[in-house]
């Protein structure tokens, strides 16, 4: 009798518990490629049991499995790109459901259902309908957009102020002051100047900054009637360097001294470039070497070779990794944004200086936000006041 009861019990259908709060909605701020499903975690979850999500073009199928993961995974808190980092994510699961429509094609409605599978049996939710549609605005980037707009407005306001009052203070940058000295030294010694633009292409801000400085250097080189050599890693950078130098020579009133082969292409291979430039250094023994732009592992190979030739070396890079090598081997090093400021510093144009001050204001704002975020976050954890917790979530979501 007991055996029969056990047999009946084993054959009886076992139903797993379904989670509450199952909801499906279009992914906000996406190109219409997916929908999101969210549901509350069950009171008791194990790694052996799984959540399964299906989609279908109609309410009655055919159903296609689109997500399956253990009950201990797939937390909303793991997907800050969709749900931020607020404390409301705690105890909720999520899944992304790909849209049925091909990218760029009109939106198509779909049906989504959630299932639970485990040792306790299986269960499925009622299907829910959703239509993933393309969005015109990414609201999760609102903070970035507002910062860009505000920063642009402040920059223009400071530039207009700089136009009215051109006597703006800008701290001394010894590396840039030393450029004049280095060019003078090269002239006295009758040796050339070697100028490198870094290894990035023209779309890199550091390369643009470097070519801008090259224009200023070319003016002085032309005025002192010394020679300059600019081996380039990128053909476009070479073209821009030639043009910038030509204009520099014209501005200095020495167009006849300009040689178009002063800036030349070497190779776009990292170590091939190093070998060629090191060779130039050893053979020509330049009096001054300028390394301005973005550098990789070759920075030390270049600067150490330059150091052995006895040249004055001035480097400037926003490549944080390579800064220590330049600091160890060069006489002067422009750190990070000093490289971007160089063109404004050397030209002393008020409108450029105005944008430099905007940079300082931006930095001050970010510092204030970091401090405020730290204070609010710490206070929220200590006092657990709802207003503080709300502010903490706001900071966490939009930071």
């Amino acid at each position, binding site marked *: 009798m007991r055996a029969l009861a056990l047999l009946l019990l084993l054959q009886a259908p076992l139903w797993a518990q379904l989670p509450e709060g199952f909801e499906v909605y279009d992914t906000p701020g996406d*190109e219409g*490629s997916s929908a999101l499903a969210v549901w509350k975690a069950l009171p008791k979850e194990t790694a052996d049991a799984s959540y399964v999500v299906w989609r279908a073009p109609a309410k009655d199928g055919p159903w296609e499995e689109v997500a*399956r993961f253990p009950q201990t*995974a797939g937390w909303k808190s793991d*997907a*800050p*790109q*969709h749900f931020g980092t607020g404390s409301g994510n705690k105890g909720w699961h999520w899944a992304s459901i790909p849209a049925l429509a091909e*990218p760029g094609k009109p939106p198509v409605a779909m049906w989504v259902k959630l299932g639970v599978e485990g040792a306790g049996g299986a269960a499925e939710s009622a299907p829910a309908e959703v239509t993933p549609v393309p969005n015109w605005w990414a609201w999760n980037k609102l903070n970035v957009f507002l910062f860009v707009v505000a920063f642009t407005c402040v920059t223009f306001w400071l530039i207009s102020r700089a136009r009215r009052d051109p006597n703006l203070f800008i701290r001394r940058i010894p590396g840039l002051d030393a450029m004049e000295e280095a060019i003078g030294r090269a002239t006295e010694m009758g040796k050339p100047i070697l100028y490198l633009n870094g290894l990035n*292409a023209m*779309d890199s801000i550091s390369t643009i900054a470097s070519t801008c400085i090259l224009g200023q250097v070319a003016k002085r080189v032309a005025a002192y009637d010394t020679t300059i050599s600019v081996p380039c890693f990128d053909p476009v950078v070479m073209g821009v360097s030639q043009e910038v130098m030509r204009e520099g020579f014209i501005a200095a009133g020495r167009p006849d001294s300009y040689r178009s082969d002063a800036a030349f292409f070497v190779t*776009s*291979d*990292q*170590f091939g470039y190093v070998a060629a430039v090191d060779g130039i250094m050893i053979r020509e023994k330049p009096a001054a070497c300028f390394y301005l732009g*973005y550098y*990789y*592992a070759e920075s030390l190979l270049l600067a150490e070779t330059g150091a*052995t030739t006895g040249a004055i070396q001035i480097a400037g890079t926003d*490549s*944080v*990794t390579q800064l220590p090598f330049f600091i160890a081997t060069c006489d002067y090093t422009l750190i990070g944004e000093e490289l971007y400021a160089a063109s404004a510093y050397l030209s002393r144009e008020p409108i450029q200086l105005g944008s430099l001050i905007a940079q300082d204001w931006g930095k001050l704002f970010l510092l204030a936000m970091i401090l405020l975020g730290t204070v609010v976050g710490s206070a929220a954890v200590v006092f657990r006041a709802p207003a503080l917790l709300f502010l903490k979530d706001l900071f966490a979501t939009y930071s």
Partner: protein
Amino acid sequence: MSPELKKMIPRWTVFGIIALAVTIPLVVGGSTRFPATPIVRGVYEEIEKLPEGSPILISSDFDPGSEAELEPMMNAILAHCWRRKLRVVVMSLCSANSMPLAEELVKKAAAEHKAEYGRDYALMKFLPGGTAPILTLGQSWSAILPKDYYETPVADLPAMKGITKLTDFPYMVCVASVATPDYWILAGNAKYGLKMGMGCTAVMATDYYPYISTKQVSGLIGGLAGAAQYEALVERPGLASSKMPTQSVVHVTLVLLILAGNILHFLTKKKGSAA
């Protein structure tokens, strides 16, 4: 002796000592097990989490210059992926030289793991342009990579099944000797939310620590030391583990050289002030 030559003596002495410190342990041989740090574990654990048959993207962004440092890392990651029966897709943003090198390394590893081209792995073409190709791949894979490295349409490759855009890869690893991890973080992770880990040369590693604490990068394998730790995790001691004794000896030699340099500096200073 000319002053120039005299100036070169300390430099060449340092070079000589380092050459010996490199060669002697290499000749003697041996291997050291290097327990993994949580940062290296970050890559391993994400790959462990992927279900069997999942696709994984590897951006092989290094050329022959960095092969010695990054090949062991690449081997260990590939071994891990195939052990987990993942579909590996390899591409490159680095240079025209990087894809032939990746082809050579991946094919060698595939032969060892009996991985079949097209089914277990696929090779893509080199894509120039920094963040530009990543942004495009995020919209549509076939827009710029309709065919693989051997001109086969990607739609015909089982390894590429279900891949229409970048985010169809649940995870990617960028192995780089240049700044391509920046591109992947900026365009792949920040724009499309692509989950990623990375490996790079030791000198680059510190550049990417900030992205680990922001969780934009799940883990980082830095240089040969990182590769040796990954080899320990996948229990497959290889090239990196065998180079650890050399690395230890060179680092200790360098510390001793720095100390010697300081002692000499103080002695010269003392002598100068006494005179």
